[in-house]
């Protein structure tokens, strides 16, 4: 039957196909759908489960969080875990360390985003819109650095910053991270796609190149800048290895390094570690929920990289 349909002229087989499509769901189709939704539900459970459990665990006592068999809801809710995390760790002067870590994270991520947006867009404008000798090779070299593993640069970066006396200062994080290959690449691609007419109009009006960049190009590039800002904030907010190596004293820690420090300090109190983790997770999740559009856009831009 199937072979016969293939030999027959096109319209007949098409009619047969469309009829088959209208016949409604088959038993096989229903089973396939059940399997499909079961798989989706299981995957959702696996992906979200750890976060739900960690959130609930952050309200349990240190004993309950390690009870066997594990409990789901806390037998008694302990919001005071959060107060304990906030206040308990102090420096020699009695100042709370945890709020300081949170502030360090906000400050480092904030400056990182502002500098990246400015310096990457400035360089991208030069690469995409201006003509100067050597621009091609410089851009190629910069994009090629995406291949260099960050961990390889860790030791020399530490030594160079140490020579300038910058280790254990905010500068050691801010300066090397002020510009990045991903941002330059993403914005160069975006700027190239902007039509030239507006710039030409600006040039005729006597605008300088910087004015053109600042007043014409940047406003047009808002979606790309927003995407880069979100991606870079996320990266800086979650960054760990770099800070672990370059910031050595407790009052300099960002939250991620602080959390790793707490893991050593609160060995018997996983509930407190979980509560502390929420201070990192909740802002990240909120930003994601509000700006999820840009995350997807960002990963699509990243796809252009290949």
């Amino acid at each position, binding site marked *: 039957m199937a072979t016969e349909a*293939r030999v027959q002229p096109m319209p007949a087989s098409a009619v047969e*196909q469309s009829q088959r499509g209208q016949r409604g769901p088959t038993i096989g189709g229903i089973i396939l759908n059940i399997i*499909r939704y079961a*798989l*989706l539900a299981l995957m*959702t459970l696996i*992906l*979200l*489960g*750890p976060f739900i*459990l960690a959130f609930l665990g952050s309200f349990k006592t240190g004993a309950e*969080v*390690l*009870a066997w068999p*594990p409990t789901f809801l806390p037998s008694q809710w302990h919001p005071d875990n959060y107060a304990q995390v906030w206040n308990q760790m102090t420096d020699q002067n009695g100042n709370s360390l945890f709020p300081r870590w949170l502030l360090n994270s906000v400050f480092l991520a904030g400056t990182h985003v502002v500098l990246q947006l400015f*310096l990457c867009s*400035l*360089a991208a*404008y*030069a*690469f995409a819109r*201006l*003509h*100067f*000798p050597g*621009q091609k090779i410089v851009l190629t070299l*910069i994009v090629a650095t995406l*291949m*260099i593993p*960050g961990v*390889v*640069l*860790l*030791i*020399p*970066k*530490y*030594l160079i910053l140490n020579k300038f006396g910058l280790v254990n200062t905010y500068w050691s994080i801010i300066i090397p991270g*002020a510009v990045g290959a991903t941002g330059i690449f993403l914005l160069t691609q975006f700027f190239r796609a902007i039509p030239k007419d507006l710039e030409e109009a600006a040039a*005729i009006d006597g605008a300088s*190149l*910087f004015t053109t960049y600042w007043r014409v190009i940047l406003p047009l590039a808002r979606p790309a800048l927003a995407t880069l800002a979100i991606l870079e904030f996320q990266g800086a907010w*979650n960054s760990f*290895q770099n800070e672990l190596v370059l910031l050595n004293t407790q009052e300099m820690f960002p939250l991620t390094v602080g*959390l*790793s420090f707490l*893991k050593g300090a609160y060995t018997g109190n*996983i509930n407190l570690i*979980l509560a502390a983790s929420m201070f*990192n*997770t909740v802002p*990240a999740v909120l930003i*994601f929920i509000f700006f*999820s559009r840009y*995350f*997807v856009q960002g990963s*699509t831009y*990243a*796809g252009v990289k*290949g």
Partner: protein
Amino acid sequence: MAIQVAPPPRQGMSRKTRESLTGWLFITPTLIIFGLFTFGAMIYAFFISFTDLGLFNEPKFVGLDTYGKVLNIPAGGLGEILNNIFYKALGNTLIFSVVVVFFQTWLAIIFAVILNSKIRFRNFFRVTWYLPSVTASVVISLIFFWMYKQQGIVNAVITWVSDHTVGALFGIHYQTVAFLDDTTTALPSIMAMNIFTTVPTFMVLFLAALQDIPPEVYEAAKLDGATTVRTFWSITLPLLRPIIFLVTVLGTIGTLQVFDQVYLMTNEGGPLGATTTVAYLIYHQAFKDNHLARSAAIGFILFIIIFLFFLVQRRFLDKDANA
């Protein structure tokens, strides 16, 4: 007031020269930072790897001696080489990378295809699945460190499932395991966690690519009587090839550098070096053992390995490169 039509020509400098100068001026901050902390650092690391630099001594040029020490070029036969922590770390890293990249890529494709088909609540799944990707590796490591404990949820789930299946049928009882303290389960546990966090990220890339495939292609396949499985192998996969290449490269670069998870979940890459990765070794050699030169040498070896992986993947997956 007269309307100025053209900019007043500046004296002594053509438009072209001015544009060139501005171009270089605009990329100057970038050049300084990349020059110092990427290119400069790379060259610096290369020089350090030929010295005996430690945290407290003045460096002395030692030729290939540091590399010899790292690679443990035969002093006492093969047995000693296998005991060498560098080879242990290299083995762990390669296994980690191959297994994680394989699963993360395939699972990402499969889930992207499922999410791309006509299903309800598609956006709900898409958003919720992405959450692990936006969470800090530090936080995920701490949560899994807890879940992998002997009294943790992973053991509880396995116990429940086995009690209701093989346990009920054959009376076999599952013995709980402290996953991260056992040399056989420690590394696979971290691999599973890593797959968990990376699948959604890559799934989004595949999903974007799938939506670029024109529906007519599938309609034509359907008219020709192609089955779902056949359509997947003969149409979807070949069209996804550029993204598969990208995901494999990104995944390989990422997994060959795995550090945060090892640092946070294990006791210095233990038990007995079972979770020591090359990236962890680089950190440990430099900042715990004060062997900066050895650390730089290991870093260079890792760089070469990553580059070789890239070339191999390009050979097999990138169509344009083969043309």
